[in-house]
């Protein structure tokens, strides 16, 4: 798929010889496709970077996008796609920025004429196709890692450990408790227990739609780990349908205290500590 040394030389000469015109025209075409969502100056700089990378690589000899000698060109393409992916452009919009060079080259090759014109144009096009695909792929990779990052942030956000009372922390679990989430929850809870020196932790599962053996196992492991650190866990938010399902599954929470609601769990802890709560106090009219 690589260009021969002669073809590369001719491409470099063609692009290098008309540097101003090429970057000008190239920028115009791309600007049209992006409809003003990127500043002209920024776009121009990107196009110039690509342009000089192609010229520099071509002057060095045969352009082979996968070879060591094309490292600079690949870096320029990756920079372009990373930037575009972060700025929220689509993969197509990004690839067009590369494919636009074909239009520019068509004019130049025609103008230059010569016996090789058609063959050269076909060879150049093939290189640009390859560059476009490379851009597309690195765009997708960047998007994927962006999505993974966001998922991780969401994970952190969605598992807050709150201090409910002096000596009592709570983790309200919401949604699916998969292994990755469970790991985060466990670490967060244990860290908070250390930071606050709390002897009690309440794990509230009101927001968990189904408690299967995996969820149960994660909870049990967390409770055991908390115990090793000297803290007692209470599981709260066990709704009737979850309770019946847990029983049918055969899951046993052993001697772990379980409560229907977070309020019940807190009341339970306070009572253990000799704090009288409102519910148990006799009403007195003033």
């Amino acid at each position: 798929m690589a260009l021969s040394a002669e073809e590369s030389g001719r491409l470099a000469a063609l692009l290098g010889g008309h540097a101003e015109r090429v970057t000008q025209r190239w920028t115009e075409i791309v600007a049209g496709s992006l409809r003003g969502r990127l500043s002209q100056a920024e776009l121009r700089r990107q196009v110039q970077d690509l342009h000089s990378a192609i010229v520099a690589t071509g002057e060095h000899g045969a352009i082979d996008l996968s070879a060591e000698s094309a490292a600079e060109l690949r870096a320029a393409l990756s920079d372009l796609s990373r930037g575009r992916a972060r700025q929220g452009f689509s993969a197509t919009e990004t690839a067009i920025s590369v494919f636009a060079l074909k239009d520019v080259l068509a004019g130049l090759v025609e103008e230059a004429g010569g016996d090789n014109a058609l063959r050269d144009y076909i060879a150049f096009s093939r290189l640009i196709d390859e560059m476009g695909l490379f851009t597309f792929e690195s765009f997708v990779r960047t998007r994927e890692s962006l999505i993974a990052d966001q998922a991780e942030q969401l994970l952190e956000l969605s598992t807050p450990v709150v201090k409910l009372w002096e000596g009592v922390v709570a983790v309200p679990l919401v949604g699916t408790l998969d292994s990755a989430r469970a790991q985060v929850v466990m670490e967060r809870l244990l860290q908070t227990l250390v930071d606050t020196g709390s002897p009690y932790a309440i794990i509230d599962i009101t927001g968990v739609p189904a408690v299967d053996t995996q969820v149960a196992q994660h909870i049990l492991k967390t409770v055991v780990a908390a115990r090793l650190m000297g803290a007692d866990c209470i599981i709260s938010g066990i709704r009737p349908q979850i309770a019946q399902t847990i029983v049918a599954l055969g899951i046993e929470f052993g001697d772990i205290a379980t409560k229907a609601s977070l309020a019940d769990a807190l009341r339970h802890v306070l009572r253990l500590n000799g704090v009288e709560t409102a519910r148990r106090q006799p009403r007195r009219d003033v």
Partner: protein
Amino acid sequence: MTAGIDLGHPQAQAIRSDEDVVRVRQLVRGVAVAVKLSLVDQTKVVTAASELARNTLVYGGGGTVEVATVDNGRRRGVRIVFADSGPGIPDLDLAFTDGYTTGGGLGLGLSGARRLVDEFEIETSPETGTRITVTKWSR
């Protein structure tokens, strides 16, 4: 096969990742709501599906699930078929023993899932893998 007329097309889903297990749960919940299962029965069948889907993934090396509505003239229900072409289960009695696990689990998934549904059929062999059909009827 158990009696029951299939209504409409079963919805199929591949089980290749943890995310797919979540999708299976959502799919089953959707159908369970559509056939008007009670909240308790919805939760039971979703939980059973979660167990069997995870077994398909972990022990069967991945597979497929089909979720369909069934109607036996008196009641409607949800029928789910899990299929993998994994190693099969060599000793069913053992596998259905509460607490038996070869994967460090609680060993309750298979036996628990059977208790959570109304009908449970299993075919397994080293040649064909494992195929489990469960049905939960509305009351």
